[in-house]
């Protein structure tokens, strides 16, 4: 076993610096690396490029880094529900690159899998394809999209072990497994770090080879963005 365990979030984020590019897992506020984000706020690193499907809300998730003006550029598919984001975007303080969600996912997976680029039909004929190479396959037009490159990937899983193996829960999986191994260093925070041998190898979602550092998060708020319920009849 190659031990990936670090003792706390501070150790997990050692080496992060200004001007770096980060990948952050999560969809909305579901499955976001809450502990890593808090530590990035504490460290105050800035001029960051963040690749994340969404940009959090005003006072939670990546919204906390935005409030602190630590982000230079945001690469996302959907950035609504965030007033500070809107203000910085409209004033030109924040650079924004909008990417179709499936393309964003695949650009992470391609980086993980060692593909430099791939063709996708998404965005053909739209402004997303402007300036990009297009090519016809089987009578249909496709756009060439390069893989992402990042310094750190911050992901959140439900359970993990010291070997870095991860299991996700529900829709908190989303982009997290795709970002593992897609950056120079992948930092995984888990709700529960279990002893080696406790996780069934048949049930592992992400093998530990894709993870460099793992720690049990001190606290997970797991905020719900849209609480929708039905009445008992």
């Amino acid at each position, binding site marked *: 076993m190659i031990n990936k365990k670090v003792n706390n979030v501070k150790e997990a984020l050692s080496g992060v610096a200004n001007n770096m590019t980060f990948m952050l897992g999560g*969809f*909305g*506020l*579901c*499955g976001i690396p809450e502990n890593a984000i808090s530590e990035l706020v504490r460290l105050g690193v800035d001029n960051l490029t963040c690749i994340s*499907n969404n940009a959090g809300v005003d006072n939670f998730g990546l919204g906390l880094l935005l409030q602190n003006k630590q982000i230079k550029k945001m690469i*996302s*598919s*959907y*950035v*609504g529900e965030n007033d500070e984001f*809107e203000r910085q*975007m*409209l004033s030109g303080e924040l650079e924004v690159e*909008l990417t*179709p*969600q*499936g*393309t*964003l*996912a*695949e650009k*992470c*997976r391609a980086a993980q899998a060692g593909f430099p680029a791939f063709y*996708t*039909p*998404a*965005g*053909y*004929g*739209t*402004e*997303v394809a402007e300036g990009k190479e297009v090519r016809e396959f089987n009578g249909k037009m496709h756009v060439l999209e390069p893989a992402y490159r990042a310094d750190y990937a911050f992901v959140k899983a*439900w359970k993990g072990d010291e070997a870095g193996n991860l299991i*996700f*829960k*529900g*829709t*908190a*999986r*989303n*982009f*997290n*497994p*795709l970002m593992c191994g897609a950056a120079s260093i992948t930092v995984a925070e888990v709700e529960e770090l279990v002893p080696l041998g406790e996780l069934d190898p048949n049930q592992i*979602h992400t093998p530990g080879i894709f993870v460099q550092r793992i720690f049990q998060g001190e606290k997970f708020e*797991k*905020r*719900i*963005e*849209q*609480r*929708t*319920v*039905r*009445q*008992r009849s």
Partner: protein
Amino acid sequence: MLDKNGIAKRIAKEVKSGYYVNLGIGIPTLVANFVRDDIEVEFQSENGILGMGPFPFEGEEDADIINAGKQTITTMPGASFFDSATSFSMIRGKHVHLTILGAMEVSENGDIANWKIPGKMVKGMGGAMDLVASADHIIVAMMHTNKRGESKLLKRCSLPLTGVGCVTKVVTNLAVLEVKNNQFYLLERAPGISVEEIKSATEGTLIVEGEIPEMNF
């Protein structure tokens, strides 16, 4: 004239047994409420769930189980969770049979615009560009005209496109239309709506062949 629920109810008739279906936010989400119980169907949400169920009962919400609208939801027996790349493999690989989504504009050649209004805050396309670029069967659910009374069924879209030549059917508060051969074919009228009313609300080329039946649900 139909309301939003009426549009959803009419679209529910397009959902066939054996279909995997992706529902967009807004009117499309309502479609799930009107699909008959004897139809075998599974709803996919692109954030990573197949076999999506209704909202949870109060007190049973789980922060780790949401839909693409970030709403708390439940799972049906036989449901599965997966990562975002697998989710879009289902979509891009045409394993999802039917996509139902809203639009600001649709043109007679099947182009769709639904993500950006120049000069206004741009929130992003989310999964819409992947969905419309891939599905063979795309139904648009929308009002026939905008708030200023202008047609949303156009010769050419004026807003930035989400996808080109992809919409196959449009269901509005006034009509059901098929998009083919660079034209809108009128298939059905909403209750109490005349062919003339639909014609005057449609800027794109409208083909009316024979007697046009009123929708039945």
